[in-house]
């Protein structure tokens, strides 16, 4: 849960707050839990909402702070075409995830970082599984292009 909040928000303090908020809400709403999904799916559905709320609030508060995350670009770059090592890949991936729409970033994290099926994600995101699958499928080549563009190397 914390990993998801942290990577979705890119802010340790905010992630801590949101994670606490999720569990407080879950504690409060546990009697209303209908067991139509697993507890994990239910918790992440709450988390997804709270992460989106937190991101929205932060955006409103800091709308003037919109700078390119150039400092996180690995430096020096590998020569053109050189294979990107795992460290560079991770750094570039983090930067490139930030460039995606929040709904797409959420879908990618839920799918790969958390290992949810598209059916589980469908319950959390109130989207059709096919829509989510299409979002993820479209996002991966975009990420690849972004990563290779940032690092100058090849995956």
């Amino acid at each position, binding site marked *: 849960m914390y990993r998801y909040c942290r990577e979705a928000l890119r802010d340790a303090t905010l992630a*801590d707050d949101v994670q*606490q908020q999720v569990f407080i809400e879950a*504690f*409060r709403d546990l009697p209303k839990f209908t067991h139509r999904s697993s507890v994990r799916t239910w918790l992440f559905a709450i988390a997804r909402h709270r992460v989106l709320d937190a991101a929205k609030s932060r955006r409103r508060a800091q709308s003037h702070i919109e700078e390119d995350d150039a400092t996180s670009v690995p430096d020096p770059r590998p020569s053109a075409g050189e294979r990107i090592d795992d460290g560079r890949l*991770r750094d570039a991936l983090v930067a490139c995830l930030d460039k995606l729409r929040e709904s797409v970033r959420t879908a990618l994290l839920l799918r790969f970082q958390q290992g949810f099926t598209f059916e589980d994600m469908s319950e959390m995101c109130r989207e059709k599984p096919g829509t989510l699958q299409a979002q993820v499928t479209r996002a*991966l080549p975009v990420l690849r292009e972004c*990563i290779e563009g940032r690092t100058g190397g090849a995956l």
Partner: protein
Amino acid sequence: MTEPIARIEAALTGLGAEHEPPVGWQSRVLAAATTRKSPKWWWFAAPAVAAVVVVVVILQQPDEPGLELALTFDQGNVVVRGDTSLHAGDVMHAAATRGGPYYAVWIYRNDLLVMACPGAIQCRVTNQAITADATLALGRYSIVALSSDSPLPPPKGRFDGDLARAMEAGAAVRSKNLTVR
């Protein structure tokens, strides 16, 4: 699936694996959750509870004054109660009666600690009360009076965590909120 995409998927899978939630988050959640239980049943029971409380208060006059928190404000030369027309630059006096041997007044703006009494220079302590004087800025304030028979845990800076720790330590708490626009 091409190998580059598989690498991205693998990197996504391991993303953030090095991060662990802050130590003690479970106890903070539990403390906060138990103080924020749904008030719905109160909506129906409130009149009866209020009546019982009135009777109990009348019948059981306390031997010692309990923990109380009162706020007054200086707006120029005018001293007012209530927060309906507060502005940046107004001065707030948060006075708490001392309900126990250990006591404190903590003031938070936007959930971050801006003053802790006793300790801050703007604090006045008498035998009966502790008063914190704060010049207000824009934002949402939470003012907390605490009292305890045992030492209070020092505040670390965030409203929820500080309050949860204090309540875990058995402190009595009174709090008020206001917004300066």
